[in-house]
């Protein structure tokens, strides 16, 4: 009996230790985000104070009202940036997903010449840092006149995201047993119907996660966007952050406020989609 008691106590202590460990990890992860929100509400003197003022003394929404206010009173064209970000992110994600689905399906299901070489080639493009491409892209885009357009940035982001979406979606289609599409064809489907009725719904969670990744990449991307955009025609929210820097000062409070404005839609989207990301939907299809 005593040893039973001992084990029970040990198990509870272990659970408590796990909980504390996870809590510490979560705090470390969340702290920068929390600090951004906090800084957007504090006056610059407090943000810059040395030694740091840990407990906020003076909270206000001034930065947010100023941001949406008139030019010259701290206002910046948030709505234009937001519109640009939305158009560019949504369009590039939609295209990257469409191409990724077609490509991922092909890699998962068909045998063709040079398949593994092609796949490796796609993956290798991921090893090139985006910033290294910004100068050549800038020169080419300038020559063909698509600097400072939605189209230019969409093109760049599609190229950036397609290898990744293909890779991710390929993995999910591989998990859908081939038998299912064959069964559907015997049940009277064309190949096309078999895809949409059976394989697509089952790979759905994978396609959704590929979509989120592509969207967030486009939404948060700064290096390329800062080179390829010029004005409110195409500047995205991350590039908009630069509006808060001037020759001698940086408005940290305003920058943090804009960062919060940027994070909120991305967070909402991820939150909405994540519950559809349940994997293991294919369980029960084959065998036991």
């Amino acid at each position, binding site marked *: 009996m005593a040893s039973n008691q001992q084990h029970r106590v040990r198990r509870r202590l272990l659970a408590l230790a796990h909980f504390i460990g996870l809590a510490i990890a979560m705090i470390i992860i969340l702290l920068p985000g929390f600090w951004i929100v906090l800084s957007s509400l504090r006056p610059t003197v407090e943000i810059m104070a040395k030694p740091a003022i840990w407990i906020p003394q003076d909270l206000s929404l001034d930065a947010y009202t100023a941001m949406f206010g008139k030019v010259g009173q701290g206002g910046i064209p948030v709505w234009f940036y937001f519109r640009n970000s939305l158009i560019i992110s949504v369009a590039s994600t939609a295209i990257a997903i469409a191409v990724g689905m077609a490509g991922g399906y092909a890699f998962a299901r068909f045998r063709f010449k040079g398949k593994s070489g092609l796949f490796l080639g796609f993956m290798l493009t991921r090893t090139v840092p985006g910033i290294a491409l910004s100068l050549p892209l800038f020169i080419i885009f300038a020559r063909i006149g698509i600097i400072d357009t939605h189209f230019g940035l969409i093109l760049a982001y599609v190229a950036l995201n397609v290898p990744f979406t293909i890779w991710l979606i390929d993995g999910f289609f591989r998990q859908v047993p081939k038998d299912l599409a*064959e*069964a*559907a*064809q*015997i*049940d009277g489907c064309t190949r096309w119907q078999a895809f949409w*009725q059976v394989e697509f719904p*089952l790979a759905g969670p994978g396609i959704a996660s590929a979509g989120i990744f592509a969207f967030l990449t486009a939404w948060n991307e700064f290096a390329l966007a800062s080179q390829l955009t010029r004005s409110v025609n195409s500047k995205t929210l991350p590039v908009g952050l630069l509006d808060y820097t001037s020759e001698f000062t940086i408005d940290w409070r305003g920058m943090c406020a804009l960062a919060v404005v940027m994070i909120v839609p991305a967070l909402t989207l991820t939150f909405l989609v994540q519950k559809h990301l349940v994997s293991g939907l294919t369980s029960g*299809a084959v065998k036991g």
Partner: protein
Amino acid sequence: MATVSLQKLVKKYGDLEVVHGIDLDIADREFVALVGPSGCGKSTTLRMIAGLEDVSGGSILIGGKHVNDLPPRERNISMVFQSYALYPHMTVRENMGFSLKIAKRPQEEIDRRVNEAAQILSLNELMDRRPSQLSGGQRQRVAMGRAIVRHPEVFLFDEPLSNLDAKLRSQMRTEIKKLHAKVQATVVYVTHDQVEAMTLADRIVIMRDGYVEQVGTPDQVFKHPATRFVAGFIGSPPMNLVEATIDAGKVNFANGDAIPLPARFKANVSSGQKVTFGLRPDDLFPTGHGIGSGTTEDVFKCDLKVTITEPLGNETLVFFDFAGRDWVSRMLNPRALSVGESLGTTFDLSQAHLFDSASGKSLSGRKA
């Protein structure tokens, strides 16, 4: 309902030919089992009939219609997969009604036919569950239900029972037999399990390395195997097959042991010919403990040493040392035996088989 006819059917993957010109005629409402070891081409043949594999040569006719280039959906067939291949995102009801939904049948008809199939397979309780909530046997039944809902002309089964445990397998075997009696469709059934083939099929097609070895009723392939391969494949425990040489009216084994050459083979063999001698465990038994279905003339008796026994309750498999190897025999009404015991043994040579060593063909002189 329909006949199925395979004519000089060939399947190639690149330069590799895996099915070599198979000819087979399956009658309307016949239950035919394709049986053979792994890689013999039986599943490939079935998948060609289903339309899931391209045909490299020859033709397939279903109901007299040339279907080589028709997609699966236009062949009026149903298939039960080894893996069941149930749609995991649909309930049992949706799984079974899927083909009718695709065919845009009215909802009332879909419901009627799905319920009818559910009735036949006693699936009524499970209709709103998803495949992941079913046991192996239930999934198997749903897969069959999905197949019968379509009222196809031909049912194709691809090793449907191989994922089930032994008890469930024999239970489902009975259900498939009952189902065939009820729906009266033509069935092509692929299995590697010769017991399934024997118990279910009207006719068995034994395949090996992409060739058909023998086509016949279960009785024919069991009693009159056309080749050494068929003799070894059909029957459990397998037939005793031992290399020997014919000489002086005797079958001589390598170590000097010999048994008399059964009279009915005399005309078909020549002295010095290398043969394989075959005798089923049922026809080799401790004297007084066997079936003894043959005539009294063709028996050979001798005392043999027991090397090992496998008691099964109603019978015991006794292994004897003879001709330099172990021979399996079946002892009915068994008594306890000890290893090394010498026992009077009867060879019922009227049931013996001889195969030519070179060609593997039967020397019984019968047309298979």
